[in-house]
């Protein structure tokens, strides 16, 4: 639009200088449609946004000085660490579990398919908080855990209460829950890969494992990544539930500080909010580069980075302003 004609051609091969078409004179260019409604809406939205920011900054209710006091307090940072730990372990274990469940669901064995389906059905049906409370009381249900033949001899067993710290309980609960959702995300990704890719890999005689790891899964990741990041963001915030199994995460420490200092409840909630915002932003940035990595070959050119897009938008805008000035 604002690009000079011929720019698209020059990407493929530089056109000889004599053939470069001249930009048409400004007077002959088609004038863009005027959009007064868009301008009115823009002004309205900007006024509302300014009012909101003004309220945030000037309303004494938020107590920004107290926010500053709490933001980097060790109790809050300890809570943040717990949130990160639970999220990280559960995200990795959940994804691995999800891959196994998805492969079982897509396998030729009816037993594996049924087991996978039942698992997903069960863990998507039961609220996470119920799973967590069950696990918390697990040591009362099963005193020892053992590995062996069902109804037969045990090969080895261990005392459950020694193994299950609060962190372990939380991670196990979240991983069980996450893997049910991740299974569907991974399965959807695998199904999105064109049947021709499976056929080509089979026709070349590529070993089964290679077919999955090098051909199918990298292509499936293109649809898995955005869906799983969605899941992951839900998980980050979902970890605030560990408060109910007596683990002090980010939300938990803010909450417990608020019960000690009731006057600071709003700034403490703001502290938790801002930290969650930061975590989500980091994940989004990582998502962008991971998606870009797996987009290789899927489109003719990679999508521009936000910085390049901003620069292009700015130069486009200045060109348009100059063009209108010329008219």
């Amino acid at each position, binding site marked *: 639009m604002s690009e000079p004609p011929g720019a698209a051609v020059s990407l493929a091969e530089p056109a000889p200088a004599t053939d470069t078409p001249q930009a048409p004179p400004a007077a002959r260019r088609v004038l863009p449609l005027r959009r007064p409604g868009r301008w009115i809406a823009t002004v309205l939205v900007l006024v509302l946004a300014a009012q909101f920011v003004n309220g945030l900054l000037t309303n004494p209710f938020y107590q920004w000085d107290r926010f500053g006091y709490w933001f980097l307090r060790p109790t809050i940072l300890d809570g943040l660490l717990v949130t990160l730990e639970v999220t990280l372990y559960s995200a990795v274990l959940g994804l691995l579990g999800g891959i196994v469940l998805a492969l079982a669901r897509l396998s030729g064995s009816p037993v594996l398919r049924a087991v996978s389906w039942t698992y997903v059905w069960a863990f998507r049906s039961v609220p996470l908080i119920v799973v967590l409370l069950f696990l918390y009381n697990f040591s009362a249900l099963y005193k020892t855990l053992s590995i062996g033949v069902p109804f037969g001899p045990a090969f080895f067993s261990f005392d459950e209460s020694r193994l299950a710290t609060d962190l372990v309980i939380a991670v196990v609960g979240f991983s069980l829950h996450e893997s049910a959702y991740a299974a569907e995300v991974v399965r959807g990704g695998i199904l999105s890969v064109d049947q021709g890719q499976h056929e080509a890999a089979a026709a070349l005689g590529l*070993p089964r494992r290679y077919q999955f790891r090098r051909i199918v899964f990298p292509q499936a990741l293109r649809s898995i990544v955005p869906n799983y990041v969605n899941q992951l963001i839900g998980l980050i915030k979902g970890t605030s539930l560990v408060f109910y199994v007596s683990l002090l995460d980010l939300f938990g420490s803010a909450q417990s500080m608020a019960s000690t200092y009731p006057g600071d409840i709003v700034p403490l909630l703001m502290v938790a909010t801002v930290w969650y915002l930061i975590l989500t932003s980091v994940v989004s940035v990582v998502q962008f580069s991971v998606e870009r990595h797996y987009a290789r*070959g899927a489109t003719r050119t990679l999508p521009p980075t936000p910085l390049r897009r901003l620069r292009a938008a700015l130069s486009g805008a200045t060109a348009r302003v100059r063009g209108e000035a010329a008219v």
Partner: protein
Amino acid sequence: MTATRHDAPATVEVHGVHKWYGAHRVLNGVDLTVRPGEVTVVLGPSGSGKSTLLRVVNHLEKPETGHVSLDGEPIGVRRQGTRFRELSERAILAQRSRIGFVFQNFNLFPHLTVLDNVAAAPVATGRLPKPEALQLARDLLGRVGLADRAAAYPRQLSGGQQQRVAIARALALRPGVILFDEPTSALDPELVGEVLSVIKDLATSGTTLVIVTHEIGFAREIADRVVFMDGGRIVEQGPPAEVLDRPRHARTRDFLSKVL
């Protein structure tokens, strides 16, 4: 150019193959022998079972009865007394690496570069160490005229270029036979020629080829034998001069009058 030398051309034999899709019978007792180095072109109306026959040869489709053999060795099955028993997937994959297959829709791996597409199979099957596989891939890309596009991704190429990469990919395993499933049907008319000329080059180099196509002129030019199929059976076969110019069967005449 020792790196691009092929294994000895193979013999392909199809013995009494029947194939059903549900109640629909796609192949109805097909027998065919392709001698080493022979170029066989399979013609026939759509739905006549040409593509299915090709897919049975490398066991992408399992026949209900009958079997295919490559140099006398059954594909996808082994003899057990008087009957056949299905082979393990690993064994079938190993057999497939001796049979090249070129798809109508290319089916290149979009996330790998052109070079990696060609080098993948020799590396994955343990035939060649990576550096040698890459060298072989470069040689083969040179042979199909795409040495300069090695670093590109498939979607950055034209259809004709993609199909030439697919042919190089099939050649990388040095197969004894290469099967082409309508290799030019998905191409714009002006890109058909470049693919056909690569196939013609293979035909003159002595590789066993089985080609399903609608390009009658091409069949006349390169085929040692033309096979005409209809309704899941081979109706007639013979040298192109016979089948294409003096067809004995009414169905062959009917088909040729429509496409010529």
